[in-house]
């Protein structure tokens, strides 16, 4: 916000100058990247200028910045303040009403015009704006009507209830009314999201609670998956035997990794864990006799419902026959959904319990000050190893689940990018916050998936535009955005494990900013 004393013309002048500079920088940056294109001709490579594209890019930067300057940064009353107020409890003034009402009216007008012109993409954007304002107003109305409800708790309980009843309800509705919902797709996606929620929670123990930056978490995921796959395919062991063994094997590897890195912290620890992740992957790739190398392991059996297989026919009774149902491939998938939901909730429960035990509190204290911990009689060796082992165990369990769900695993599933995504979920969610990690997992994994369904975008970017190709770019932008606006993650408060008065969440301001 500019100082109130400055006159309007002065402000416009500053805004224009600033936008001009930004445009100049954009021109310098884009002139080679966008302005020129090499084309492979018969005569060899030739340079093709693309002035229109360059002009568009520079124009977007110039006018975008000009608008931001005039109405947000240099403005006496930033427009964005009214939107931000939607998410606070401050009272609206007349200006806010005008801005929000104007936005809503403009959005409605936009929808109508777009519909008349037959441009559904623009209608979609206008609808999104309308929904945003509407949701904000709805939130305000609820908060206004019931100011003292424990909203965070309601949100959590509602989320868990939704997760519990979502597949059964939709399946029942579908069987009864044949609505044509893509249930198979929904369930597969939910299973994927829940797997990442579980991995995020598992890594949260190591990174969020114990403060040990682990860039090779996928190694434990891989160990779990391969342990499960090898045991299940070679020895024919069942799901409920293989799964805990997969977890234990990963925990053992957690301890093996833990020993050499006991003295390391921060950047150094990150490098060693990164290397560890790569070593595991490369061993899996090259140890052909055991792991079948790049060809992977296939034919991993699906879990059974306590001995009843989910199959159309079997030697014994199948799940469908036992319960007198008609066979449906979705039964098995719904079962998988509940297995991963249970595993994820188990991870959460164990973490929450651990935090209240001396060992869990020692993890958090170790993140704060290792030397102080030692002088308080805490064996930091044991503390670190248990953190690594516990985190690794949940990674291994998730890996075992992954193996049985996919039915096929190969080293390609366990590359560094997986570690990076899991770590990003933890960091974006807010280190140490269980709810934040869950939200981040839903948003990241769900968001990547949503990119596949943005057909409307082709209207802007031309035919053949595939937004899914840009997911890493968007991922990076999201990362930068979060680190600029919420450097401590989406949910940056932590609940105290013991309180004399009310257990209020404490915000993480002042300390631990941007530190991993």
């Amino acid at each position, binding site marked *: 916000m500019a100082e109130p004393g400055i006159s309007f013309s002065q402000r416009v002048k500053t805004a224009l100058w600033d936008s001009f500079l930004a445009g100049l920088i954009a021109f310098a940056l884009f002139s080679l990247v966008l302005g020129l294109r090499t084309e492979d001709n018969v005569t060899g490579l030739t340079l093709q200028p693309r002035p229109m594209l360059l002009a568009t890019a520079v124009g977007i930067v110039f006018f975008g910045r000009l608008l931001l300057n005039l109405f947000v940064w240099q403005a006496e009353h930033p427009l964005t303040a009214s939107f931000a107020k939607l998410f606070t409890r401050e009272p609206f003034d007349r200006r806010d009403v005008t801005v929000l009402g104007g936005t809503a009216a403009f959005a409605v007008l936009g929808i109508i015009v777009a519909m008349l012109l037959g441009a559904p993409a623009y209608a979609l954007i206008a609808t999104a704006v309308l929904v945003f304002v509407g949701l904000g107003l709805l939130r305000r109305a609820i908060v206004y009507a019931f100011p003292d409800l424990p909203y965070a708790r309601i949100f959590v309980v509602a989320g868990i209830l939704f997760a519990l009843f979502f597949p059964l309800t939709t399946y029942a509705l579908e069987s009864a009314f044949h609505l044509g919902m893509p249930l198979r797709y929904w369930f597969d996606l939910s299973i994927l999201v829940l797997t990442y929620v579980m991995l995020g929670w598992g890594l949260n123990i190591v990174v969020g609670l114990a403060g040990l930056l682990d860039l090779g978490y996928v190694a434990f995921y891989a160990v779990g998956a391969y342990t499960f796959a090898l045991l299940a395919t070679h020895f024919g062991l069942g799901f409920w035997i293989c799964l805990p063994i997969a977890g234990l094997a990963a925990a053992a590897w957690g301890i093996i990794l833990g020993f050499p890195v006991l003295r390391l912290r921060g950047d150094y620890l990150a490098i060693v864990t990164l290397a560890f992740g790569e070593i595991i992957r490369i061993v899996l790739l090259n140890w052909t006799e055991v792991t079948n190398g790049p060809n992977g392991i296939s034919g991993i059996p699906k879990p059974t419902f306590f001995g009843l297989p989910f199959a159309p026919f079997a030697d014994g009774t199948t799940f469908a026959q036992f319960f007198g149902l008609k066979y449906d491939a979705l039964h098995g998938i719904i079962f998988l959904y509940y297995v991963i939901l249970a595993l994820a909730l188990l991870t959460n429960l164990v973490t929450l319990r651990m935090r209240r035990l001396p060992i869990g*509190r020692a993890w958090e204290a170790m993140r*704060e000050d290792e030397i102080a911990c030692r002088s308080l*009689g805490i064996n930091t060796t044991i503390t670190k190893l248990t953190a690594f082992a516990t985190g690794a165990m949940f990674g291994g369990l998730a890996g075992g689940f992954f193996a049985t769900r996919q039915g096929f695993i190969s080293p390609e599933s366990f590359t560094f990018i997986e570690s990076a995504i899991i770590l990003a979920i933890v960091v974006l969610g807010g280190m140490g916050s269980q709810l934040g990690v869950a939200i981040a997992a839903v948003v990241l994994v769900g968001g990547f998936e949503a990119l596949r369904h943005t057909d409307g975008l082709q209207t802007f970017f031309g035919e053949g535009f595939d937004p899914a190709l840009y997911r890493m770019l968007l991922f990076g932008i999201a990362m930068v955005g979060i680190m600029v606006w919420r450097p401590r993650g989406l949910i940056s408060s932590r609940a105290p494990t013991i*309180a*004399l008065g*009310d257990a209020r969440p404490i915000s993480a301001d002042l300390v631990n900013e941007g530190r991993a």
Partner: protein
Amino acid sequence: MSSSLLEIDTVTACYGRLPVLHGVSLDIKLGEIVALIGANGAGKTTTMMTIFGRPRASRGRIVFDGRDITQLPTHEIARLRIAQSPEGRRIFPRMTVMENLQMGAIIAGDPDGFDHDLDRVTTLFPVLKARADQRGGTLSGGEQQMLAIARALMGRPKLLLLDEPSLGLAPLIVKQIFAAIKELNRDGLTVFLVEQNAYHTLKLADRGYVMVNGNITLSGTGDELLARKEVRAAYLEGDTAMLKETGA
């Protein structure tokens, strides 16, 4: 008052290859307040940290309660009920005051006695009760020092090591903390106090040692040391107001 609770016997310690302590000997008897004073860089903090094994004594012996602790790992030394309020306080900034105190109580190993111990330290430092659910990092310097001492006390120590509890604090707060130390000592706690604030420390202490460049150069009762010309020249120079107050 004759048995030694802690005995440091000609201990040499180094940081890397740089020797810091050159054969330091001192002993602390049960129920005493012993002070170690000296200038910046004399090796006071190192002496205290060597008791905890970091850095480890390369020569000499440290005996606590009749047991050689020279080679024990730090956390096991702490578990013998030696508590410290370290240099820079080292409280856990993101954890609440209660959580900090709970971390201290781990050594006591008596969850049922937690409330009793909590009562004791909050009687000593009532401000901690008012701040119980606040993050350690948001406390003022004096409150953090109180928290560091309280956290150490939660482990029911036999010996309390205090490294410069007066550092950077207002005189009124220092007075409060020193009064608390005195009270703790009256209840039977043995205290080893490292300080630059020579005057107040020696007034408080039963006995004191003066350290210069990694050597103990003087020792005696607090009043004896205060009367020594060398001590006054080195550590009380300029504090004429204080000297007048003592009538020296």
